[in-house]
């Protein structure tokens, strides 16, 4: 049975042989010296290289550096390694190396970060080479034993065959010898047409424990003598913790300690989390809310609206011709203003981390999308050097970008540091999770299109105003102050390129950063940019009396991959043929994360306010399809996430705080509201695009365009609940 082995809670997942550590040697792809020292997993089985451990019974352990949070990367990455390794897929298990081990081995596993739909697309080449290298070494070991040329041997299903003689052996029998060989300097990867496992919708490797309650998430960690902590951070971002009266709660049942965590947060540590939370709720806390307490959604909206004025400074993200001049002299002009609100990730599992600190060691157990980032947070918060720190990654109860942040890891370490030798699990309440999100940024957008007398689109001006994620999260990635990611889907080239050719184009961003901390939220800037652009495309088409698909096609002749996915969904939804009585269609396309995607919806609307989505279709060209079953699930899941945000989402600010506190005020779609998502995959090859995020961008504009078709009413403000529009 395939299985993903989560790390044991009371010991390291595998050990590096002392000789290897002493000599600084290991057989690994990125380590330039080979040698006789074999690195062993905890059970004694040898590593062929950092990606592959083989047990005597032919079980193949594939190491996965990226984090599994439901998106299926664990299974997809294992498929990539196994394809080249030629191992028996039914005997594949996976495990996580730890960030501490990676640091000790000179980052042998490369990047651990799991965001931006990068899991497969940015590691596919080196993990496939890891599998291929291991196969070459295993085959060589068998050839050496038989004293035959390796070129006369083949490998399949973990069995090596010497073709001329018919002799066979298995990976499990030759692995000890293989692990001592020098890795080949170069390996040739398979031609995609020869793939057997890549492209197959094999089952996930981590399902069984998720159906029995056995899967251990961060919130489920149990360690001997562990205490539990509940935390409150100042609900006004940027505010401070003035004082608290711990005497009022120290006598409450189970309470062990009240600790100041930062200059803005306080935690109660107790025997159980329920006791900790109950005492925290009873703890008198005085906040110094500061200037930000004056900020509201209205004041933010007003400030952003000012940024739509052309007289205000803005960064240019895409430009050709002279859009402003062409608009000024146009025969006809169309203009519209849109906005998109803050959104909380609302992962099903609230943020949490468990830390054990002693002056000699600091260990953390948590779900994280960024193992190395979490490791860095442990170093910083503990003050200990890398060799005395470790992070044990656990299954994530949802990520969506939130768990790429390490705020909760830092908090857990700071609490544990005040109780040396006692493991402490910090778990946020849902209310804390809603209040202390790292929110999808707030933006507005003014779009202006210009036509000549023959109704040809001559100019387009897209003026974004609003928050930059990178400014807050990764300022080093700004380019002379500009946030290049703000233009996702609207960029001149790259992995989020604009799909239309317009003679005069100007796309710009007036950056305005309110005090609410932003974060990468599934789809990131594609979410609002695709709504703005794709709804406005429909507005432009309507203004000249043209069909929305035909109108787009005329602008897409130089963007064949964008056009191909648009055509694919148009065909699938039946564009150009009559829809059923009372049913209306909408369509949208965008590029993001290296993939070309499009979506189309069929909806009906009752009383102008009750929407039923009858059908929803997606197409994607991610270059290559590693696991079509998982891609279907990611597309459908992205639509649920995107439509939940469209209908029910939106986080508002009052007195500097987020107003929504739980799922009663920040709702999420249920099964009754979601139709089956029909997926069309049109992989064109030659590039590797992402899967988890891109399609989220087209769900909302497809539905909004269908709503316009049904009602003649254009919605330019999200979420729909603000306009009393909901699901039928």
């Amino acid at each position, binding site marked *: 049975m395939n299985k993903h082995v989560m790390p044991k809670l009371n010991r390291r997942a595998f050990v590096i042989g002392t000789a290897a550590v002493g000599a600084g040697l290991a057989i690994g792809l990125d380590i330039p010296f080979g040698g006789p020292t074999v690195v062993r997993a905890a059970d004694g089985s040898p590593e062929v290289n950092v990606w592959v451990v083989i047990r005597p019974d032919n079980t193949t352990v594939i190491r996965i550096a990226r984090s599994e949070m439901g998106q299926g990367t664990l299974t997809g990455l294992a498929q990539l390694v196994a394809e080249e390794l030629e191992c028996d897929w039914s005997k594949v298990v996976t495990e996580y190396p730890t960030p501490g081990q990676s640091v000790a081995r000179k980052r042998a596993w490369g990047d651990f970060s799991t965001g931006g739909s990068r899991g497969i697309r940015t590691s596919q080449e080196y993990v496939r080479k890891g599998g291929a290298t291991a196969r070459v070494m295993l085959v060589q070991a068998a050839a050496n034993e038989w004293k035959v040329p390796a070129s006369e041997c083949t490998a399949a299903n973990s069995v090596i065959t010497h073709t001329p003689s018919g002799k066979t052996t298995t990976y499990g029998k030759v692995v000890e010898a293989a692990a001592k060989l020098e890795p080949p300097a170069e390996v040739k990867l398979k031609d995609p047409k020869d793939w057997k496992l890549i492209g197959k919708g094999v089952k996930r490797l981590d399902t069984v424990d998720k*159906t*029995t*309650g056995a899967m251990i*998430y961060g919130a489920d960690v149990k360690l001997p003598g562990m205490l539990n902590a509940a935390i409150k951070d100042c609900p006004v971002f940027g505010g401070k913790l003035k004082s608290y009266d711990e005497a009022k709660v120290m006598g409450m049942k189970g309470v062990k300690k009240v600790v100041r965590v930062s200059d803005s947060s306080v935690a109660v540590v107790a025997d159980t989390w*329920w006791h900790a939370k109950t005492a925290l709720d009873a703890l008198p806390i005085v906040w110094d809310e500061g200037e930000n307490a004056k900020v509201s959604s209205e004041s933010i909206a007003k400030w952003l609206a000012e940024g739509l004025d052309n007289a205000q400074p803005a960064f240019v993200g895409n430009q050709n011709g002279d859009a402003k001049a062409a608009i000024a002299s146009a025969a006809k002009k169309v203009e519209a203003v849109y906005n998109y609100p803050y959104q909380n990730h609302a992962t099903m*599992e*609230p943020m949490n981390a468990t830390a054990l600190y002693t002056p000699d060691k600091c260990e953390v157990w948590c779900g994280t999308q960024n193992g190395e980032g979490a490791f860095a947070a442990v170093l910083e918060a503990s003050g200990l050097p890398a060799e005395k720190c470790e992070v044990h990654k656990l299954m994530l109860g949802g*990520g969506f970008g939130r768990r790429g942040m390490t705020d909760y890891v830092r908090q857990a370490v700071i609490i544990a540091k005040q109780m040396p030798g006692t493991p402490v699990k910090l778990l946020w309440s849902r209310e804390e999770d809603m209040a202390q999100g790292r929110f999808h940024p707030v933006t507005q957008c003014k779009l202006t299109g210009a036509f000549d007398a023959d109704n040809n689109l001559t100019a387009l001006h897209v003026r974004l105003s609003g928050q930059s994620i990178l400014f807050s999260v990764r300022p080093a990635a700004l380019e002379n102050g500009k946030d290049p990611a703000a233009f996702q889907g609207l960029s001149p080239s790259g992995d989020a390129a604009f799909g239309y050719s317009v003679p005069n184009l100007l796309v710009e961003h007036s950056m305005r950063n309110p005090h609410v901390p932003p974060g990468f939220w599934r789809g990131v800037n594609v979410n609002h940019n695709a709504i703005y652009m794709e709804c406005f495309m429909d507005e432009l088409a309507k203004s000249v009396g043209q069909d929305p698909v035909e109108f787009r096609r005329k602008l897409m002749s130089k963007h064949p991959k964008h056009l191909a996915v648009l055509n694919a969904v148009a065909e699938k939804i039946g564009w150009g043929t009559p829809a059923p009585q009372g049913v209306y269609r909408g369509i949208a396309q965008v590029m993001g994360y290296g993939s070309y995607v499009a979506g189309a919806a069929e909806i009906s609307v009752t009383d102008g306010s009750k929407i039923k989505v009858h059908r929803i279709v997606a197409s994607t060209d991610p270059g290559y399809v590693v696991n079509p079953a998982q891609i279907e699930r990611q597309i*459908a899941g992205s639509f649920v996430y995107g439509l939940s945000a469209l209908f029910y989402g939106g986080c508002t600010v009052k007195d500097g705080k987020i107003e929504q506190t739980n799922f009663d005020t920040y709702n*999420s779609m249920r099964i009754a509201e979601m139709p089956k998502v029909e997926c069309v995959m049109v992989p064109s090859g030659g590039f590797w695009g992402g899967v988890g995020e891109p399609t989220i961008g087209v769900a909302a504009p497809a539905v909004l365009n269908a709503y316009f078709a049904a009602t003649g009413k254009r919605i330019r403000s999200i979420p729909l609940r603000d306009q009393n529009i909901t699901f039928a």
Partner: protein
Amino acid sequence: MANLTINGKSISVDVEDDTPLLWAIRENVGLTGTKYGCGIAQCGACTVHVDGVAMRSCGLSVSEAVGKQITTIEGLANNGALHKVQEAWIANDVPQCGYCQSGMIMAVAALLKEKPKPTDQDINEAITNICRCGTFQQVREAIHAAANA
């Protein structure tokens, strides 16, 4: 101190009467398959069976659970044989992150007991658990598969 019957076993837990059943199950009994998602009976991640009925254990106090048969996800299998809903979940590769799935499976198992062949409409009315990964399509397929197993 309260005496609870969980997965057929009598267990006494040292908690205050108003402790939510969810936290007694997770922290005092140590069964962590039942998840905390919202604490206000909105999301369904904490769903267990109380006398055979699916209930959200975060909204139920320990004192209300005394004397009742409580089944958690860990007790759904029978003598090591997985429940047909769990089997269907595996066969249909339902979970993504999986965090909500214990509650989802418990809600479905209770539905099938009441309505062995639920229609899509029955499913829409009975299954109101939140899944942020959006596994609804596979959930629906797996419910029908389990009903026909």
